[in-house]
């Protein structure tokens, strides 16, 4: 179906954006890469009166290392994220996640800010930033806020953003950690039936501060507290991995969806747990 009739205007600075939003009120909608929004307009899931394009706002661009964190501007496109040297050096989990997001032509347009704001429960980047214990930096006419990623995703397609507030960027603490992401999808590039983004440290052979974050199995990224606790302080081996798989039952309550029943999702999550944690043991022997 064709898009609804609507207005279009391009903001070129943050003050410009605030005045556009103030003028057009609640029926104005922000557009970044448009790779989700324009598809949903074709389904007539919403009919905004005006699209306010933020893609040329320079304050929302760029990747840098500042004050102990890797800062990624909201307008960083998936393709840029995938080839950025600072991201590869400090958050290789994101580099690894990019090829799993949609297809090349979509990765050339879609942005990290759009992905986090849309908060699709099967999306890769929300799970990654929770696993990396990142902070979402927001901006509005009232100023900036900093929201821990684990508190940012509040429910299905819901975030802690207030009306009139946007994502300015994310900040990922610089730390030495092991991280990996894997998913199971029907077609390469499709949304995951189930996925796992994990980060942890290994100190003297023992697991420290593990964060196992599942996606495609809940209303948002699921930080698995029980499975993570089952690993904490233990050597990473077959026994602790089995304990994490066992404890996972307490963490997940997957809804039935197009892909299949809750039991199938639980099974996939357990399989991914072994694959991802196994990759920290002997990366070379890993086969998906």
């Amino acid at each position, binding site marked *: 179906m064709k*898009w609804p009739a609507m207005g279009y205007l391009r903001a070129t600075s943050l003050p410009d954006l605030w005045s556009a939003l103030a003028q057009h009120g609640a029926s104005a909608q922000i*557009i970044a890469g448009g790779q989700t929004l324009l598809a949903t307009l074709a389904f007539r899931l919403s009919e905004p009166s005006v699209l306010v394009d933020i893609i040329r706002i320079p304050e929302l661009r760029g990747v840098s290392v500042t004050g102990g964190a890797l800062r990624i501007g909201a307008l960083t496109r998936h393709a840029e994220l995938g*080839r950025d040297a600072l991201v590869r050096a400090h958050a290789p989990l994101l580099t690894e996640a990019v090829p*799993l997001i949609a*297809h090349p*032509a*979509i990765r*050339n347009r879609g942005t990290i800010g759009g992905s986090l704001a849309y908060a699709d429960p099967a999306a890769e980047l929300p799970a990654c930033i929770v696993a990396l214990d990142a902070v979402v930096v927001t901006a509005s006419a009232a100023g900036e806020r900093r929201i821990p990623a684990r508190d940012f995703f509040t429910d299905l397609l819901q975030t802690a953003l207030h009306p009139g507030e946007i994502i300015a960027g994310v900040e990922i603490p610089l730390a030495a950690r092991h991280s990996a992401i894997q998913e199971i999808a029907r077609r390469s590039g499709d949304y995951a039936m189930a996925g796992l983004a994990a980060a942890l440290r290994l100190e003297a052979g023992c697991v420290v501060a593990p964060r196992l974050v599942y996606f495609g199995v809940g209303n948002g990224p699921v930080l698995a507290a029980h499975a993570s606790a089952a690993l904490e302080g233990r050597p990473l081996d077959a026994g602790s991995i089995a304990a994490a798989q066992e404890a996972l039952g307490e963490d997940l309550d997957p809804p039935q969806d197009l892909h299949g029943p809750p039991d199938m999702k639980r099974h996939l999550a357990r399989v991914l747990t072994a694959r991802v944690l196994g990759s920290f043991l002997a990366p070379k022997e890993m086969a998906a």
Partner: protein
Amino acid sequence: MITLTVNGERVTREVEPRRHLIDFLRLDLGLTGSHAGCEHGVCGACTVRLDGEIVRGCLVLAASLDGADVVTIEGLSDSGEVADLQANFVARNAAQCGFCTPGMIMTAADLLAHEREAGRGTPSRAEIREHLSGNYCRCTGYQAIVDAVEDTLKARHPVADLGRGTAPAPRSSEATR
């Protein structure tokens, strides 16, 4: 009112915000080589080059393109950039009804243009499949299409490194494709 470059020519047009790039090309400029299939980003039939990168033409607002540089299958054919690829599509019978073909050629041309970037070797067959994975062929000519792209790569780079490119990250779905 937008002014942009399409296949090397400057054009200025009035466009409605609800116009996507593919309808703009087809209906306003008469460039009907690019196809609109699903119009929500899934099939890849609408793939065109925008500022040097492939995009889904159905997920780009024409109104946002002031100052942009667009290349369609017409421009790509006329420049001769993919003459060998097109010849291999014919030789391998990789176009059946032809609906997906312009999008396939645009996507394959992107792979050909970016191959060996960042020190990677010539793309493997698995990488060709991965790169084309967002383009549906309803005639399901995938095997022939991958053959045509692979033949083009081999002919352009007759060195023996074909298949030694970095394989894409292993995926669970790989075995089923």
